[in-house]
């Protein structure tokens, strides 16, 4: 009954969105595989100055797109997870080791990891993303080549590591040794770039819920990454998404894996603290 009522409501909203340009996020609940409850809306973390409630990008997508994320059989991003499970078991490099040789089952050893990344790394004295950590294991412990920062291999692996933390709250640290990087990311978030002079905040803080042409603007949260996009029919990394958004301001973008994008990722992730890890998500 509740489900029916909700569907009717979303239908009305979809019609409203097509008719006029009114397009608030939907009222809906995400439970994956009938068991994992996803927090898609919650009180904003204390450091947020202009937003009271944070929301997953899932709430801003159409009914069909949202539905694909409710069940792993319908989520095309899970194929990438399966392929990464094979890579997890495959020995590579001069040491003849696989991820599994050191970490055993990803399901146990990687649970909770996604939720706290990007994260300060003491040895490297820098903030590391999951990608940096994965490549660190490859080059330092396996004697294998680093994967391309935003290539399919690494994005698939990030999807596997994210998938085992689904439902856990994002909780990246913004203080201590990470504070300077976090500040740098915040600065980038509010900088208006390119010939259109738009900042991340212009679209994702000032205008979420509004339509920019056919695009329904969300808060630009990263809790759903990697995201399977129907538009390019593949899994997209956080930095690939950032690159696209900066390019759309008619700006010179930063490179995936650059210190600027790592700092921006830490800051944007911290804006989603409290939302559940959702990756791999489905978006349009």
């Amino acid at each position, binding site marked *: 009954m509740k489900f029916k009522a909700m569907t009717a409501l979303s239908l009305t909203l979809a019609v409203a969105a097509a008719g006029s340009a009114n397009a608030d996020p939907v009222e809906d609940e995400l439970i994956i595989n009938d068991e994992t409850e996803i927090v898609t809306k919650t009180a904003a973390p204390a450091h947020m100055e202009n937003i009271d409630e944070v929301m997953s990008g899932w709430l801003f997508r159409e009914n069909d797109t949202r539905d694909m994320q409710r069940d792993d059989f319908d989520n095309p991003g899970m194929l990438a997870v399966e392929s990464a499970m094979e890579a997890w078991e495959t020995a590579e490099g001069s040491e003849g080791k696989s991820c599994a040789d050191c970490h055993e089952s990803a399901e146990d050893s990687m649970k909770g990891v996604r939720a706290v990344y990007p994260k300060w790394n003491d040895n490297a004295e820098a903030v590391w993303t999951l990608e940096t950590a994965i490549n660190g294991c490859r080059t330092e412990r396996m004697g294998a080549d680093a994967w391309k920062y935003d290539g399919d291999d690494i994005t698939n692996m990030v999807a596997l590591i994210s998938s085992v933390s689904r439902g856990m709250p994002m909780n990246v640290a913004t203080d201590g040794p990470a504070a300077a990087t976090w500040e740098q990311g915040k600065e980038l978030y509010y900088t208006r770039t*390119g010939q259109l*002079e738009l900042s991340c905040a212009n679209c994702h803080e000032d205008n979420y819920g509004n339509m920019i*042409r056919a695009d329904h603007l969300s808060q630009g949260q990263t809790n759903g990454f990697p995201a399977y996009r129907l538009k390019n029919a593949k899994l997209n990394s956080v930095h690939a998404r950032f690159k696209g958004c900066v390019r759309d301001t008619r*700006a010179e973008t930063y490179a995936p894996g650059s210190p600027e994008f790592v700092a921006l990722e830490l800051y944007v992730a911290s804006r989603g603290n409290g939302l559940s890890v959702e990756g791999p998500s489905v978006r349009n």
Partner: protein
Amino acid sequence: MKRAISAAIAATILAAPAIAETVAPGDVAYDEAGAVAASLSGMPGNAEEGANVFGSKSIGNCVSCHEVTALADVPFPGNVGPSLDGVADRWSEGEIRGIVANAKMTYDGTIMPSFYKVEGFTRPGDAYTGKGIALDKIEPLLTAQQIEDLVAFLVTLKE
């Protein structure tokens, strides 16, 4: 012979003002409220062409942020900016010209891009390639005449 020469001179005289009077982006005279009194191209605008600039993704793409009932056939207008129905009742021609050329002179810090400006950008790119562009190669988003065409279109929007 004499005739041909005077025809050539006449042609030069007719064509000259349009070129001579195009105001460069750096020379536009905004008053303290952000309005621009005179045509940027030295020529009147064409409302029909302006409607086309307004609705085309590859030209003005104003519909990405603004809805206009007069252009109801252009799909998916955005709502980041206000509906422009009746805009000519709210603003004079000079005020509209100022808003379209550089809305930041009218609305401090507005999200609306500046369509006739070539300086003061952070990390400007070469269109939508994501690559950088030499500062002296930056063209305004719209030409002086396209701005005039938009103005001619917008002044027709009365309620």
